[in-house]
């Protein structure tokens, strides 16, 4: 993980040099505190490993490459949503609109393709729909100082309502080009199946990682989450950044809708209801603090995988009804939130 965490590397200062109030033990404590930032992510990793272990012990061929590959295939759209959500939550905001925007994008894709618009136009167009809604939300938050919760709530209602205006019924997608793109796959090392969606999701993760850690925009996102006022006084482009995170989240939701349309080969107005909760849960389980400023995009990906694995286990178990998924996710949220709380208490 060293590459994911550029600020982790310790170097550059005179070692052992005395500084006010910093003796040997204090230095060590400081080191530990740095590590502490990664503890929630480590926790997510442990949980992931634990679920895998439980699954591996209980069921034959659970620990197969196929199961893991499917985990990515079935959750690619959620990964993309969670990545976008991570940007927003890192600034201390929240985006409730992503589930509805995902549905709008999927419905639009199905509708446009059904209407005979070429796929090459449809693909960028529906992603752009997400960006535009994100932009409008961002402007509401920034220019009109509407609280993110309310602005994205309005965005959610707006997108969901539009879905029904466009298509009250489910529209199947039969276009050959689209189906070909959706159905394309490749095998890594002959065992790991990768679909278009998975590749898109991986690219999104890569871009997000680069943006957050290697651009000024990314550092501004963290700075705003740490203290918006400080970021502003530091002369950072707070306004632009705050609008941009919603554009990114909206774009991710638009892209997620496209992936969902590929996944389901249809567009239906009622898809993605309460999916924003899954995205938020994945981000929180992935170790990002809802107060902003702390967290990692890779943590959110791990969070999605944890949610996906719980679902897989319950499917494997057979006797457990589907509603146990929700209860498990709730319990897991509780555990992680309490863990974060304990960590932050120890820090002060």
């Amino acid at each position: 993980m060293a590459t994911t965490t550029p600020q982790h590397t310790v170097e550059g200062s005179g070692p052992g040099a005395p500084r006010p109030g910093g003796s040997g033990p204090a230095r060590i404590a400081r080191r530990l505190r740095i590590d502490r930032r990664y503890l929630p992510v480590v926790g997510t990793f442990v949980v992931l490993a634990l679920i895998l272990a439980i699954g591996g012990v209980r069921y034959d061929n659970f620990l197969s490459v196929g199961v893991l590959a499917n985990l990515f295939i079935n959750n690619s759209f959620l990964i993309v949503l969670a990545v976008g959500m991570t940007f927003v939550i890192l600034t201390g905001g929240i985006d409730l609109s992503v589930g509805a925007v995902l549905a709008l994008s999927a419905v639009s894709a199905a509708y446009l393709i059904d209407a005979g618009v070429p796929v090459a136009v449809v693909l960028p167009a529906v992603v752009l729909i997400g960006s535009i809604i994100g932009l409008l939300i961002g402007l509401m938050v920034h220019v009109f100082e509407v609280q993110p919760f309310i602005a994205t709530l309005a965005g959610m209602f707006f997108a969901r309502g539009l879905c029904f205006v466009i298509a009250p019924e489910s529209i199947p997608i039969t276009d050959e080009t689209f189906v070909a793109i959706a159905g394309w796959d490749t095998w890594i090392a002959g065992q790991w199946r990768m679909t278009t969606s998975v590749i898109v999701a991986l690219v999104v993760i890569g871009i997000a990682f680069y943006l957050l850690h290697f651009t000024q925009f990314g550092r501004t996102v963290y700075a705003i989450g740490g203290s918006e006022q400080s970021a502003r006084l530091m002369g950072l482009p707070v306004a632009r950044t705050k609008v941009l995170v919603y554009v990114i989240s909206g774009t991710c939701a638009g892209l997620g809708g496209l992936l969902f349309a590929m996944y389901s080969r249809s567009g239906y107005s009622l898809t993605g209801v309460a999916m924003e909760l899954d995205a938020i849960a994945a981000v929180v389980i992935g170790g990002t603090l809802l107060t902003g400023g702390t967290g990692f995009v890779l943590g959110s990906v791990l969070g999605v995988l944890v949610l996906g694995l719980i679902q897989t286990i319950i499917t494997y178990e057979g006797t457990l009804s589907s509603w146990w998924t929700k209860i498990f996710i709730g319990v897991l949220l509780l555990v992680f939130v309490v863990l974060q709380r304990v960590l932050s208490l120890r820090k002060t």
Partner: protein
Amino acid sequence: MTSSPSADRPVVEMSGISIEFPGVKALDQVDFRLFPGEVHALMGENGAGKSTLIKALTGVYGIDAGRIVVDGAEHRFSGPGEAQEAGIATVYQEVNLCENLTVAENIMLGHEPRRMGAIDWRAARRAAAEHLATMGLDIDPASSLGSHSIAIQQLVAISRAMVVDAKVLILDEPTSSLDADEVAQLFTVVRRLRDQGVAVLFVSHFIEQVYEISDRMTVLRNGQRVGEYRTSELDRLELVSTMIGRSMDVLEDLHVSTEHAVDVEQGATPYLSAVGLGRKGDVRPFDLDVYAGEVVGLAGLLGSGRTEVARLLSGADRADSGTTRIKDVPTRLRNPRAAISQGIAFSSEDRKSEGVVGDLTVRENIVLGLQAGRGWMRRLPRRQVDEIVDKYMAALNVRPANPDALLRNLSGGNQQKVLLARWLATAPQLLILDEPTRGIDVGAKAEIQKLVAELASQGMAVVFISAELEEVLRLSHRIGVMRDRHKVAEIVNSDDVGVDDVVELIASGGEH
């Protein structure tokens, strides 16, 4: 423009600056100039317009009239970013950095070295370390900022300011949370920057520090400039009278009223008696008696444990060792409520976050403590509320005299008075005041000092904490001396005791 700074041409010239807020003229035709290589103090009471002027110069506020010329070019800043580009860097009182980021990130944010478009973290850390080194700071750039003391954070903030090769460095109340050593460290850095030709604008409530560091000063009063002086040509008394615009009667008046000494009867029971009271990490176990009718001062530097003592005595923090006796009855003060029910009132040093309930009215703020004690079901009758509010607003001279004003709209001094009223309304027998006069103007300060003296003479027990030793000496009958989270000495105050004696006790740790 790369013209070298010359001592005879100001680097900043503000002329005829006016800024109006609804109903208030915050700045009225103010002129101000700042030369390279000088430390310039901006002086004035609260509400004089100091921070408004700074915010105009740093682009936080737009100006309604006047011109700002920086380094020969006129500017109209529409945001802090633009002022920074013009070479004006600011370090605010509350360190405005991000604790969740590392020291290096905080210094370099916005100016990170790039390699192929991406931030080059290795180079960024190296550059940060260099900047820290030029200021004589040796801290790990990769450590997270939140793990450092406020003083270090302040110096990191200055490092950040200097990354852009600022021509002007504004320090807004930089020393209010620092102890003496840290102030010295800060001043070393400031002098170094000054000698490099940086123009430093220094704002502080601490008059001694202003005399120690500044070359020149500008005094503001009521949004207008009173004058610009060489520090060496204006003595302290003149400065204070210029700032408040009236003679020092109030303060002298006070001196008379507290001169009489208290005589606590031999063998009397103290109102509160703490034995071995302590809390791990906050303050080592201490003994302290407070008698009715006396003011016990706590002297010590910031971080010496003086605030922690007050918090233990008032139940704001829970002690983990020792006992408290109220009128000889062992009592556990588990929370502020418990203390209040024992007649103990505690006014925190952190007025903004632990005192003021800004969006409630002055009236509601005054009765809050009393009402909380009664519980939500037994509401204070309206008539009684009005009586209490009228009484204390008049007694404490709260301005504006409007009980329906929201507390957040009052000045710092008046907010403090309202908080005092809140506590007095609970009719306490022991009043614990932690820095009640910090950051408020001279007039309000004198009024509060006078009130403390009066309350004690009427039989209230008072614990009084202040960073200003003169104030502690002026008011207290007995003084507990704190150092390094430890009560090191206790002395009986008299005319023979001076600031020097207390300073010596703090310095020596009470060991002669």
